């Protein structure tokens, strides 16, 4: 028997259980729920959606669309899940883990939180190569910087860095950015 204070609940337990059951299962209505998600699940979907608003040089078009991740980040696993569900145009998405010294071409390179201090070095290496560099919560924005505002994911855009990287960002994406430099 459950004890609650100094009162024995045995006599009223059945009633309580009935009331709880009625409360839970009798009063349900299908109100549209608010949506929540894992931080990196959301960020991964942002990254995928950016592909609809960014133009890469045609010479870099390929059978696969490559997203590289520099540094340890949960976004890697989340992007792999996106890659199993989505394509960029007709191209299959491939997710790669890159070292900080890597020079391999990727359509998008994501610089994880722990590696944002190396951002400038990475940007110089990929300048003019048609790579969109996205930083994760960096104090200094890359072409696109993912940030958290009021418990929601937002993004900042640095147009000049995008241009240096050799990609073109659409005005529609600029209008959705929380800050444009």
């Amino acid at each position, binding site marked *: *028997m459950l004890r609650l204070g100094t009162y024995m609940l045995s006599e009223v337990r059945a009633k309580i259980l009935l009331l709880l059951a009625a409360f*839970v*299962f009798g009063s349900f209505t299908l109100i549209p729920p608010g949506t*929540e998600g894992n931080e990196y699940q959301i960020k991964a979907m942002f990254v995928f959606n950016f592909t609809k608003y960014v133009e890469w040089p045609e010479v870099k078009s390929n059978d696969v669309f490559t997203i590289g991740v520099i540094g*340890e980040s949960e976004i890697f696993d989340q992007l792999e899940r996106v890659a199993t569900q989505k394509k960029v145009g007709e191209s299959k998405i491939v*997710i790669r883990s890159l070292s900080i010294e890597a020079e391999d071409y990727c359509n998008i390179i994501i610089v994880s939180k722990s590696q944002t201090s190396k951002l400038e070095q990475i940007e110089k290496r990929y300048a003019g190569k048609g790579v969109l560099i996205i930083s994760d919560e960096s104090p200094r924005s890359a072409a696109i910087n993912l940030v958290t505002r009021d418990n929601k994911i937002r993004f900042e855009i640095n147009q000049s860095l995008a241009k240096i990287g050799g990609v073109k960002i659409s005005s529609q994406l600029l209008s959705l950015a929380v800050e444009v430099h």
Partner: protein
Amino acid sequence: MKKLILFLFILSGTLQSFSQDTGGETQDTTSFYNLSLEELLNVEISVATKKALTLRESPGIVTLITENEIRNSGAHDLMELLRTVPGLYFGVDVEGVVGIGVRGNWGHEGKVLLMFDGQEMNEQLFSSLQFGEHYPIDQIKKIEIIRGPGSSVYGGNAAYAVINIVTNNNPDFQGISAAVSYGQMQKTYASRSISINGGQHFGDLAVNAGLYAGEGNRSDKVYSDLFGNSYDMTYESHLKNYLVNFSTEFRGLSFRFLGDYYQVEDRDGYDEAMSEASQMDFNSVFFDLKYKWKISNKFYAIPQLKYKEQNPWKVYEHSAPEDAPYYKEANIPSANLTMHYDVRSNMEVEGGAEYYLDQATDHNGGTFDNGKASITYYNSSYFIQGLWSNKIANLTLGARYHLNNAYDPSFVPRIGITKVIHKAHFKLLYSKAYRSPSIENIRLGENIDPEQTSVAEFESGYQFSSNSYLTANIFDVTTRDAILYYYDRGTEGYHNSGSTGTRGFEIDYKIKSNFGYADFNVGFYTTRGKTKSDSYQVTDQNELLAFPGIVANAILSLRLNQYASLNPSFTWMDSRYDFIGEDAEGNSTYRKFDPELMANVFVGLQHPKAKGITASIGCANIMNTEGVFIQPYNSNHAPLPGRSREFRITLRYDLVRK
């Protein structure tokens, strides 16, 4: 029986109405991948995962068991799942109660903390946990097992491990889930249960409620004590658990009520079996009110009020003649404040203070250490923990300062250094734990002192791909002034032993692929180089009583097709030792149990048309292995038999809305 009928009635009616009303409206994770950029801008981050480090980065030796893995395993009892975690085992205490051991060490009383939806389930009189048809798993979302001390964060009961259970009874869960399960041993049923949980948002108000009713039998074999008495456990090892879980959340203000009723049928007693069985109750209620006060984007505070009331080890007046009635109540009101500050994107600090009372009352006319029928101990704690992710490594520093009016103040530090280098990771961890004796430790002990545990761990891992990784750790555990229980021909008590501990390693390899997934792990411990306590030791062996030096597990889930999976699992245990008395010269004598292989196999099925309806059908302990629970200390309780081969079916219905 009436209650079961009532449950079934509610369940069937609910399932019917939901299947009619919602049809194909259930969302799954694929719908998330269809959100547009504009829609994504409105998605909120779930707080629990916001600052979470990956398992590879987190400063602890962590095993995570997911909802999917729980379902596939076919397990019905938490013990079945925890046994597959390297370094965890189970042994018998007294009076039919089964407790837990970690890395060879008996952790039953106050050395392993079990959190169930944020509530500390350890009973407050002796600080013990009770396993076997307890802590229902049908509603669990995930189980995190942290081996090694969690005391700087969680307080005194977490010296060896923390088992953190999170159920679907939380604001993230919307929908309904229900399960019925039945297991049949050779001579009687093993378990039968019904579980139902639902959650709904009403604007900003989230409401969740869950009910569980289950019962079972510890064994259907014959128990024989060390004094020549025997009885058939088929009819005298009944276990029962009811659980009520209610939570609500409104704009950061949340409340939870948890009621846990657990009953053990006891005939094995302390050493010599009793002439008849008696019932023993472990009742707990928890109230938890907290508010997440978001002061800025970087700073939040959580003030929290909690109240826990328990009547553990309650033996009624009409119990067996050999069993003394026991009816004590423990109350623990507490207030605490936790503050979290994101100093920079790579640095966060969390700290706080807690004040609580340890109160107990004896309703049977007995007295406590103060000579009265009631006693109160006053406690306060202050803790701080910082995480700094820098170029060299992730550094975690933590400490807890605890004040108790019965003992000197204690200081518990913790340091963790973790580093991920491409596909490899490294963790170097050192923690201390300090536990003041519990209320009954003090009453039954003579000048009992606090015990201190220190644990050093090193883990390294390698991620072969995003779906396959290997981890290995080495550990060294030392408990000084360990508080040990003893029972000797009607006399029981507690004393401090000098020192006890183990060292060893654990290796775990996990792989996921199109075929399904597999987990292979092994745990090894030895007492070589460590001081052994008289109560726990096996003379001339490098291991301790009850727990095997090596345990290896293989857990597989093989996808047969879109709707079916085959889930075999195997546990191999090295030989174990049981204390059976002393010879004429006063030397301890032991019985050796040979190595054992336990195997389970379950088939998981999904209904091809009715989404959300699943079944698990299979057999636990296929080879009918003995699987006894041995007492991990030398107090003359014979091994308690485990279950015979068990056929089990679980039917589920889940309607989850995101």
